[in-house]
């Protein structure tokens, strides 16, 4: 197992209701989630805005500390590890961000951006590693000299992927990585990700609000609603016979490019 998550709780201070004096009330974001991510699995995490899907991702990478429950990564309990202990672990779980324009430093060249985490983790022979990563995401190695603003949206997202895979992690979290892209580059980025998962034997959690994208890429799906798992299952099965009322509502709301779909506008 890559991840074993049991009864995960997470609450954050609710600053909108902070009194002038006294303790800040907390708002519960994740309300007891339990699930596993097997090795090599591509898990889709779906939910509306405010469902807690990004918070869950951040807790899995320990960018946030859970307030209850347990997260085991490759059998090691990382629930309450401190930064020093986590530093040795971080190269095993990496993240690809939603908006490549704001997650790539505009003042550094692509090569420097990809080399950043490698240097941090003491990897040697940087230029070769950078070229290798660029090659794996289908970008010419000459792109190492370019700046992010010189690239298209799809190319920028490839750089984000190259940075994440350069450290050869076991697990990658992708948070809404295609929602800002046009449909044509969306398809390319998703195909690339599917290929990399297969070639490198990665495990992937793919956060998205788009069920059509999830169906294409993921082997398992987890549906979140208001901080709770409303349904979890194998992709084909979940799409063909959804059980939870919320899943059915979500599926029925998707406008398919088909004028004969019963959607009653």
């Amino acid at each position, binding site marked *: 197992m890559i991840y074993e998550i049991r009864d995960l709780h997470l609450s954050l201070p609710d600053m909108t209701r902070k009194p002038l004096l006294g303790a800040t009330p907390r708002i519960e974001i994740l309300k007891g989630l339990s699930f596993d991510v097997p090795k090599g699995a591509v898990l889709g995490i779906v939910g509306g805005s405010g469902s807690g899907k990004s918070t869950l991702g951040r807790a899995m990478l320990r960018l946030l500390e859970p307030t209850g429950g347990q997260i085991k990564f490759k059998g090691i309990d990382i629930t309450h590890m401190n930064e020093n202990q986590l530093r040795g672990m971080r190269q095993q779980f990496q993240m690809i961000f939603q908006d490549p324009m704001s997650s790539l430093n505009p003042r550094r060249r692509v090569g420097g951006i990809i080399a950043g985490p490698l240097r941090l983790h003491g990897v040697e022979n940087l230029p070769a590693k950078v070229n290798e990563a660029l090659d794996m995401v289908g970008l010419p190695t000459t792109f190492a000299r370019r700046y992010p603003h010189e690239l298209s949206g799809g190319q920028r997202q490839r750089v984000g992927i190259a940075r994440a895979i350069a450290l050869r992690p076991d697990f990658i979290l992708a948070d809404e990585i295609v929602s800002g892209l046009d449909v044509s580059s969306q398809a*390319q980025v998703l*195909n690339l990700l599917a290929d990399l998962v297969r070639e490198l034997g990665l495990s992937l959690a793919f956060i998205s609000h788009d069920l*059509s994208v999830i169906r*294409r890429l993921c082997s398992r799906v987890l549906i979140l609603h208001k901080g709770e798992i409303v349904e979890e299952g194998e992709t084909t099965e979940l799409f063909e016979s959804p059980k939870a009322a919320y899943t059915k*509502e*979500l599926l029925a709301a998707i406008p398919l490019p088909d004028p004969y779909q019963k959607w009653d506008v």
Partner: protein
Amino acid sequence: MSGYLSVRNLTVALQTGEPILRSVSLNVAAGQVHGLVGESGAGKSMIGKAVLGTLPRALHVISGEIWLDGVDLLKLSPAARRKQIGATAALIPQDPLTALNPSKRIGPQITRRLVDILGWSKQNAQARALELLDEVHIPNPERVMRSYPHELSGGMRQRILIASAFAAEPKLIIADEPTTALDVTVQKQILRLIAEMQSHHGTALLFVTHDLGVVSKVCDSLSVLYAGKVLEEARMHRFFMHPVHPYSAALLAATPTYTNPIDSLLPVSETVIEAVEQEVLEHDIRASR
């Protein structure tokens, strides 16, 4: 047949001469919904902006006509054009949070246009605003009129902008990606509401979107744009059954469809892109002669 809005051979360019819209023509009849689709940078929002006279300063209309309610807007003086547009057209913007003033209550934001531009009395405008909020299914309109934008949800704010767009009974509404920022379930409610309001008021609607799924639900006809050029104009059913232009077909095949995971989300091939680029280039050569 010219429609209520008729754009003819509209060319818009940067100061450097780089064209942004290339001889665009389209018609929207009263009571009809026309979709503008294309990828980012295709110029779909720019058509709406050209009609409303809100093009960015760096862009200029080089040639063409924009007929709105029987008047060519481009032949009017700037003041007369603003007046004509204000009286006949309105916009439903993409992001409901930036479109509303965060420091003002909802009520005055809806009534201001009625009072300032159309010269209504405050009482009449107030009554009309309440009526409209009720029409867009906002519970407890009196309370919402006194609320600030941040106190309302995204769906609620988009309802308010829809109410505000219909307030002065415009004959044309331009909706620029009105549901892109919303969840699918909320999107469905909002699209349903726009369709309901549009057919109830008999408004001509120009609907800008990148989502072909949404087009198939709300539009009667559509134009497919690439690099500011209309590649295909079609009735909605015909388009989805038999797309004529190879780029249209490629765009349809790239659209994610959960009921058809194998034959959807296909990348647009290099050959198609090269052919389209060639078509755009040939257009530019013809235009420069």
